[in-house]
């Protein structure tokens, strides 16, 4: 499927997802099933699209490896999400935390950090006019500054809250990994915006917006789940859904560029 056609499909799913996630029926079983399966479908699309990009790059091309790592990371996330969906759809219970899916989410998160840093470093040394080194890396510096400001208010209640050691470690790991990933992601978003009017904009803007939505959700999920606040579950579900359906649009955009 081409990126343009997928984008139309993604827009429809995101719109329906918004109604399901943000409406008063958000906690009903049909909405829960719809949201869980939609998230899984988006992730499967992201995995397939990323592997298409991997296949589009030649074996000796340096960009092949970060795309391969990203594809494997998304596959890990998909397995993790499948575990959550199994609880929600098949067992009809709220997914536990931690769950057997968490090791896959953890590995996926670490691989995503690696891939995003690799993308940013490759862009930095590409020789294209992407600004001075300070301009190029300034979005990462801004994110890290934000991390320095928000780390304590976000992580303090997580560390103080009663939780099992594993849950506490995960609730610290997810926001920390998200912030670290957001730094190179912000760099790549700026790079993507430099390509406005070109097909590369349709690669890097959806990809980075999608990951940003997922990563912000990870931070908020850790914070709110620690405080046992479930009233924002619908909004978080929507952010995940938005991310999981925007990422494949970007990856398919890259596949289209390679195959054009």
């Amino acid at each position, binding site marked *: 499927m081409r990126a343009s056609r997928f984008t139309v499909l993604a827009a429809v799913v995101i719109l329906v997802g918004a109604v399901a996630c943000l409406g008063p029926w958000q906690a009903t079983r049909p909405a829960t099933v719809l949201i869980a399966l939609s998230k899984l479908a988006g992730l499967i699309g992201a995995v397939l699209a990323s592997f298409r990009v991997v296949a589009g790059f*030649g074996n000796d091309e340096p960009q092949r490896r970060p795309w391969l790592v990203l594809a494997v990371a998304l596959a890990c996330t998909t397995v993790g999400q499948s575990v959550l969906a199994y609880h929600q759809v098949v067992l009809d219970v709220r997914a536990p935390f931690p769950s057997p899916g968490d090791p896959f989410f953890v590995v996926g998160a670490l691989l995503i950090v690696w891939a995003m840093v690799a993308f940013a470093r490759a862009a930095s040394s590409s020789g294209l006019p992407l600004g001075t080194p300070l301009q190029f890396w300034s979005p990462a510096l801004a994110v890290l500054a934000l991390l320095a400001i928000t780390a304590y208010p976000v992580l303090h209640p997580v560390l103080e809250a009663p939780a099992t050691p594993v849950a506490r470690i995960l609730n610290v790991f997810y926001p920390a990994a998200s912030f670290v990933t957001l730094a190179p992601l912000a760099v790549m978003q700026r790079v993507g915006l430099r390509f406005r009017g*070109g097909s590369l904009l349709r690669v890097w803007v959806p990809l980075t917006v999608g990951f940003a939505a997922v990563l912000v959700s990870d931070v908020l999920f850790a914070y709110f789940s620690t405080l046992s606040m479930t009233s924002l579950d619908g909004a978080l579900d929507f952010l995940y859904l938005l991310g999981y359906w925007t990422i494949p649009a970007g990856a398919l955009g890259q596949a289209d560029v*390679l195959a054009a």
Partner: protein
Amino acid sequence: MISLTDRVVHTLAPYLGQTAARASVQMFLEKSRLQVGTFGTQHLGQLAETLKPGLKVFIGAARAEVVATEILGLRNGG
């Protein structure tokens, strides 16, 4: 009449967009100490070779090669 630099920009723009395409050509001119008026078809080979590594990162080696060939084709008024 469309200038040679505009034609190069036109070749790059589908991928990079107008702004980044123009900045890429401008960067080459500055590095080569050329001006728009002195930029000619004899510089197209060097321009294509300069841009190719960066293009490879974003659009892959095969597509970068095609774009480089298109730039070289501008020698013949392509």
